[in-house]
């Protein structure tokens, strides 16, 4: 890994100076919705085609921005993977299935523009956190379903090569009484049961799904970590490779630090355990960059 070197900024503080990835900001993948449907693309400073990771931010489908994944995207790019961190329409405009259609459109855009960005279109993984984890899961199991088929000019995406949902809901029907889920769904479970089924990744599992790596926190009281194991088991039941990393002490936005006695602001997928498992998962399913 010759891309980085240690910098001594102060007598004590050091930093790692790495060759910066090429960053292309605010690339529109669907011009109809302005900033809501743009992505930031991070390309490794190497010749391609490279495997890629599409990143989907969280925020209860209502908040958030593609910049939340800046650090992860830069790290992927410095490690040899292209990365694309996307915006998507948020509630109320992103009410289901709009947000899911945007995510599918973003993947189709990357696949169609693979040559332009030196990406291998057959080696694109999808990773999301929280609401983005739910959308990543849904794209992973329903990428070919009509009900979330994008209506943008790039058409329907091809199957993602691998899926990494972090702290994502897998069954919206189980939490249908939550106001934030009803806002995303545009109604209650009683009013639109079919839509709830469509939006629940676990209800869409079928043979031939891409491999999944599910990451959840044992201390996550905002997300729904209890839905991760049933999703893993449902995927395994149809012959799909699926593994679950559950981090004891990991919350939705608070993680243990290097010092196990310190709690830090951060997401689960930024923990050393998660990074190691993600690197291994991507190397096995996308190939080494």
């Amino acid at each position, binding site marked *: 890994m010759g891309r980085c070197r240690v910098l001594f900024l102060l007598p004590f503080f050091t930093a790692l100076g790495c060759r910066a990835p090429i960053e292309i900001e605010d690339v529109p993948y669907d011009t109809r919705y302005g900033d809501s449907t743009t992505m930031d693309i991070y390309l490794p400073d190497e010749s391609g085609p490279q495997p890629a990771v599409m990143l989907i931010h969280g925020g209860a489908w209502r908040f958030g921005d593609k910049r939340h994944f800046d650090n992860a995207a830069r790290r992927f790019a410095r490690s040899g993977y292209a990365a694309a961190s996307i915006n998507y329409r948020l509630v109320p405009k992103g009410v289901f299935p709009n947000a899911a259609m945007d995510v599918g459109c973003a993947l189709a855009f990357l696949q169609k523009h693979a040559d332009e960005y030196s990406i291998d279109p057959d080696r694109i993984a999808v990773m999301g956190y929280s609401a983005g984890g739910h959308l990543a899961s849904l794209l992973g199991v329903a990428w070919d379903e009509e009900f979330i088929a994008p209506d943008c000019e790039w058409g329907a995406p091809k199957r993602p090569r691998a899926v990494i949902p972090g702290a994502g809901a897998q069954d919206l029907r189980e939490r249908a009484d939550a106001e934030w889920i009803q806002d995303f769904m545009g109604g209650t479970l009683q009013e639109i049961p079919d839509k709830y089924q469509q939006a629940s990744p676990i209800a869409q599992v079928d043979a031939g799904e891409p491999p999944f790596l599910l990451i959840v926190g044992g201390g996550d009281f905002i997300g729904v970590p209890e839905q991760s194991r049933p999703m893993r088991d449902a995927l395994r039941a149809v012959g799909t490779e699926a593994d679950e990393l559950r981090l004891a002490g*990991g919350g939705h936005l608070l993680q243990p630090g290097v010092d196990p006695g310190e709690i830090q602001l951060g997401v689960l997928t930024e923990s050393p355990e998660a990074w190691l498992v993600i690197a291994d998962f991507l190397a096995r399913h996308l190939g080494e960059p």
Partner: protein
Amino acid sequence: MRGSALALCAAVLVLPHVASAEPKGKRNAIVHKPIALLSSGIAVEYERYLAERWSVLGGAGARRAAREDFDSYTLTLLSEGRFWLTRSDWASGYAGMAGPYLAFAFDAGRTSVRYVPSDRHVGAMWKLEESFRFGNRFVIWGLQEVSVALALDVMHEFDEKGRLAPNTQLTIGADLTVGWVF
């Protein structure tokens, strides 16, 4: 002769002030960090009073956080230097290693992950962390201590296999210790 007398007078005047800055008998602390229990871990530290308002800590921690299809071990060495902002705790009046403090900490840890179903080594990562901390120690009954601190952390990560690029990241954290001073 006259110079020696002046030096003696100066020493007589100054020494009591130096002595009064020393803690009243208690120069050590042993603490543990209950937050570590949440991640199936443990962290303990020993603190020694060095000189006026300065103390140093050293310790170790471990956690075994990964569950389900993965298992992990993290071993950490902890070090910290503290400057005590006041000579005594405003709440208890206890002098020495009490009340508000500023600290610089350096921690180093190694995390190793294993895939359980096939007993395969997934990888290992080193994580170094430099922190500026502001905290306060409360001393109860002159023996029990509870400390809380806020930290600005700079973290560096190095993947042993080199599959991931090294990374530097800034974050904020919070620290809680419970222990004894003696």
